[in-house]
């Protein structure tokens, strides 16, 4: 790369911090109790969902308000394959990933032609429609839910399996985002976000790029759903197809900073830890507080934590940049 992006200049420091974070999180399970292992597993999952949504919302600029549909699809594919067809977990997980990606790929061609509100509403419609169908169809256990086979092994092993499973998935999704951000796909998506016509006449196959981004996002979300299903061992349509899954991910992306590599992860950690530490006891007002946080973020931190950081560095750089160039009078 042409050392162009501002963020990459602080490479050495950020890589040290990153490696330290990875090492700490990797050895942490040996020092903490089951409760915190569960909390962190949930946290990783939220970060994965946010990171996956970021590809569509942050980079391509499409408000996929119903991206949770792939979470539900992944969960139910795994559940049905394991329960009804006796598959073991990993093949079922891979099938879930493929199914989610395929659905996004097929729906993407017509649906991603819609812009703005229309796309947002269409994804909500798809989410609800799939939920209703899953509730109706017999093989999924319908509205009563479906139970998965239990994880073989004791509760400690089980906790570690899902902790590391989600952790690895998070690392993979961050790596994918990093790769995309520095590839033609990433640049194409960022161009599509602000000027789709200009992107198209500059040689970007905009439709293909959008569909690819959505499919990758769906694949990651599908795996998260699959792992979560095996972890919970019981699924209900209303739970895994809840619009709140997407909305929370949305808030994490916005809080952290859309179209940044680590923003969504930071947003997820921030929001989830806050929720765990401060108001997890007050379940009655959980939703209301989340609503309040959303309103406060949009009013006071519209470009997110990373955006704030970026603005500050830009202002810093600006002071050191020459001002002479064509047309300035």
């Amino acid at each position: 790369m042409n050392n162009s992006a501002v963020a990459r200049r602080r490479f050495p420091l950020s890589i040290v911090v990153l490696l330290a974070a990875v090492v700490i999180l990797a050895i942490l399970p040996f020092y903490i109790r089951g409760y915190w292992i569960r909390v962190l597993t949930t946290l990783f999952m939220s970060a994965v969902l946010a990171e996956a949504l970021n590809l569509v919302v942050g980079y391509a600029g499409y408000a996929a308000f119903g991206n949770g549909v792939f979470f539900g699809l992944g969960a139910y594919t795994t559940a049905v394959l394991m329960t009804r067809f006796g598959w073991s977990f990993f093949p079922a997980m891979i099938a879930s990933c493929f199914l989610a990606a395929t659905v996004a790929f097929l729906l993407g061609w017509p649906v991603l032609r819609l812009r703005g509100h229309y796309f947002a509403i269409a994804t909500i419609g798809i989410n609800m429609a799939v939920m209703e169908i899953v509730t109706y169809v017999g093989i999924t256990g319908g509205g009563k839910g479906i139970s998965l086979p239990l994880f073989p092994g004791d509760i400690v092993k089980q906790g570690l399996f899902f902790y590391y499973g989600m952790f690895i998935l998070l690392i993979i999704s961050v790596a994918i985002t990093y790769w995309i951000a520095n590839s033609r796909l990433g640049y194409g998506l960022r161009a599509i976000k602000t000027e789709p016509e200009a992107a198209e006449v500059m040689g970007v196959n905009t439709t293909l790029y959008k569909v690819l981004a959505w499919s990758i996002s769906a694949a990651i979300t599908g795996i998260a759903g699959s792992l979560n299903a095996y972890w919970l061992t019981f699924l209900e349509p209303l739970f895994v197809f809840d619009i709140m899954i997407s909305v929370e991910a949305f808030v994490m992306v916005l809080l952290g900073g859309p179209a940044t590599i680590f923003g969504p992860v930071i947003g997820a950690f921030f929001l989830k830890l806050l929720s765990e530490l401060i108001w997890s006891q007050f379940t009655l007002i959980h939703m209301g507080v989340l609503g309040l946080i959303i309103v406060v973020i949009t009013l006071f931190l519209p470009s997110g934590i990373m955006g704030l950081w970026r603005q500050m560095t830009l202002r810093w750089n600006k002071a050191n940049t020459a001002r002479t160039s064509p047309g300035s009078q």
Partner: protein
Amino acid sequence: MDLQVIINGILLGGLYGLAAVGFSLIWGVMNIVDLAQGAYLTLGAYITFWLFKLWGIDPFLTLPVSALILFGLGFLIESQIIKRVLRYGFVMLLVVTYGLNLLLQNAMLVAWSADYRSVTPAYSGAGLNIGGVNIPYIRLALFIAALLLVGLLTIFLNKTRVGNAIRATALNRLAANLVGIRTEFIYALTYSLAAAVVGMAGSLISMVYTVSPNLGGAFMTKIFVVTVLGGFGSLPGAVLGGLILGITEAFTASYIAPGLMNAVSFILLVVILIFRPQGLMGKQFYGA
């Protein structure tokens, strides 16, 4: 097709239409998909419930109260929050209105619990019976009230100076500004008006549905379908969309499977969006 099914669908569709009018208006004028409409609807329903329960006020007479309270709330929210978020674009608006919806819904949950409550005036059981087709008086009254309200709003938008200013702003905010319309005021007015209308829809809905903090959530998805069917910003479109949705639901429930009622309307939503995003009647706010 069974006449009873059609009648049921039409009567229900009128309410759907009224519920969607505010949402459609905000979308058409301000280009905002207002996800807080569900909470306003619920609040309207609760207002009617409490006035009826505590003082025995006839549910139909509570409409002006709902309208006034929701108008005030809408004005407050527009001027304090929505106005400030406008410049950040539609994604932020989508998210902030969802946040407001959560906040309001949760507030109602805390204040009035998750209990299911119903409004049952003395006349709620009676009905007409014409040639085997049963028409409950209350459903008929709600249908007529819904049409009347949409009609009044249409007249307001077309015949009054303020209404014309709203329509002009919908067409082109900048141009409206240039000819001396205070578009900032028009935005606040539109939002408050829309909140008032959906609040009244909630009041009417409380007479046939059980009231709980989740009432608005269930209706929100219907509002989407209706608005997309009719084309956003179009009042006749909203009514038409409501009727189509009502009939489709009644038909699906009677002839296909009751369990697929919602699935069919969501699939309808996606299909219409893909093939005719401007709605069945087209984008014709200015022709409303």
